[in-house]
């Protein structure tokens, strides 16, 4: 029953990441398109345009990174890992998951401190800049949960960490 609930939460996080990324991308698309049109009409201007673009781009990046983290699809070099015996591969996976957990915890805790201490208000929209910075600790906290689970699985000898994703070029 607990496992079923956890799986539902996991799927919900996956959906939030997916639709958050799609929504941010569409939002950026329309904003930039409007910016081009507005530039051609001298009477018009969009106030706070830069601030919304920054908000959407930051959230798109960190939600996308969380999705890749969750799927074990962050880009990595798997050549060595695939060519070593199983006990060494397992040790490498434990190390990798530990380091991922460390980065995620720094993002969560130090990111929260940074958000709390920043105390900035955006110049045009007059909104707390914390909504922008929240992308780091919020996704960092979830990454930490996934890495803790990944580390637990690795310590129990289960295959974890995914095969790594591809990168553009």
């Amino acid at each position, binding site marked *: 029953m607990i496992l079923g609930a956890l799986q539902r939460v996991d799927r919900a996080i996956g959906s939030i990441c997916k639709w958050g990324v799609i929504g941010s*991308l569409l939002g*950026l698309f329309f904003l930039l398109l409007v910016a081009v049109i507005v530039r051609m009409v001298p009477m018009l201007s969009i106030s706070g345009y830069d601030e919304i*673009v920054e908000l959407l781009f930051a959230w798109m990046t*960190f939600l996308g990174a969380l999705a890749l983290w969750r799927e074990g699809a962050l880009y990595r070099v798997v050549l060595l890992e695939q060519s070593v015996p199983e006990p060494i591969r397992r040790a490498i996976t434990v190390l*990798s998951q530990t380091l991922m957990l460390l980065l995620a915890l720094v993002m969560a805790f*130090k990111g929260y401190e940074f958000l709390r201490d920043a105390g900035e208000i955006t110049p045009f929209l007059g909104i707390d800049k914390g909504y922008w910075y929240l992308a780091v600790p919020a996704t960092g906290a979830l990454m930490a949960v996934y890495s803790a689970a990944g580390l637990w699985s690795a310590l129990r000898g289960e295959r974890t960490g995914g095969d790594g994703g591809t*990168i*553009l*070029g």
Partner: protein
Amino acid sequence: MFVAGILLSLCALILLGTPIAVALGVVAIGTMWVAVGPELLAIFIQRLYAGTTSFPLLAIPFFVLAGNLMNTGGMTHRIFNVAHLIVGRIRGGLGHVNVLASMLFSGMSGSAVADAAGLGVVEIKAMKEAGYSARFSATITAVSSTIGPIIPPSIPFVIYGSLANVSVGALFLAGIVPGLLMGLGLMLVIALIAKRQNLPMGEARPPFGGAIKIVGAAAPALAMPLLVLGGIFLGIVTPTEAAVVAAGYAFLLGRFWYRELSMRDLPDILWESGRQTAQVMFIIAAAAPFGWVLIQQQIPNALLDALFSLSSEPWVILLIINAALLLLGMFIEGIAILIIAFPVLLPIIMKIGVDPVHFGVIIVLNLMIGLVTPPVGLCLYVVSSISRVSLTEISAEIWPYLLALVAVLLLITYVPELSLWLPHVLGYGVIQ
């Protein structure tokens, strides 16, 4: 010793399979902690966040989106048909068609992977049907895809421009002649192989009316480079806005002109484009605090001294940089190398007086060669997957083409005018 420790830790973590973004972040955290203390970690977060806020980098998701929309929206096979019309008749014609189609596609997409994955399917199918071996077809598809990010628009140029604070427009212009040279180099190798292996001649050219029909069908797609590059060079749009226009145009063409793009495809295309963008952007974000650490620890200066103790001749230093980048490209994907190596390389190239625009072309060309060098080359994997030809078979066949690409790289490295002439002529202020 501390400097060597930082760089060796990063290399070791990457080789051990730690995700590149995580390796960069953890090494930056460790260095900050050891050098000053945990209080410096606020800077880590600040740099990590700031790494995602560069306006020029916003071009990345939209060039990715444009490439994905074109691959789904029916543009790729029409571009292939035009290339076939132009060079399809000569011996080994479909090999030449493959290269020319990639050059045309390059003017619309900024990614080698989009070329290999999208156009590659059409190219390999046509070549196999015409009697070419699957191995030959797959190999040419892989090598020709590397032209994509050299001929503008280009995602690696957008990233380099943002890192080096160099005009993306100037970089786009600087890539045109090198991209054409890459195409010619590959066609030369294909011509030699076609003669030696007596490869088939293409079919007779279609009648004039048929030719007009083929060009007419592809014309709206072929107009995209004019729209994107014309918009940038006439100063109507920035490269970021041009990417948005390209994505919008690709959507309109696929949906309403060619009618091959369904609205049901759109969420998956947007999701895939967002994921691919996040893959790159998370590495860029994690590289920002790492770059800060490198500069704080004066690591570029230490490497500069080490390099100058070997030689102070610019041509030797450029040769060493090229060799190092080619070697790295055999194991790590290009964009990751670009982001990691750039803060280290910038002071070196400034010291030896290389124009940053010229160096942008050198580094991106290097990294594109890395996409097709075994054992780790993303375009090799993509083409191997779509052609069902093993990686070993493609790797065995690829060497003559790699030699041609390396020859072009050396030509570009030692004749800066090949890159700088066009930006200079069109008024982009590059250092001569």
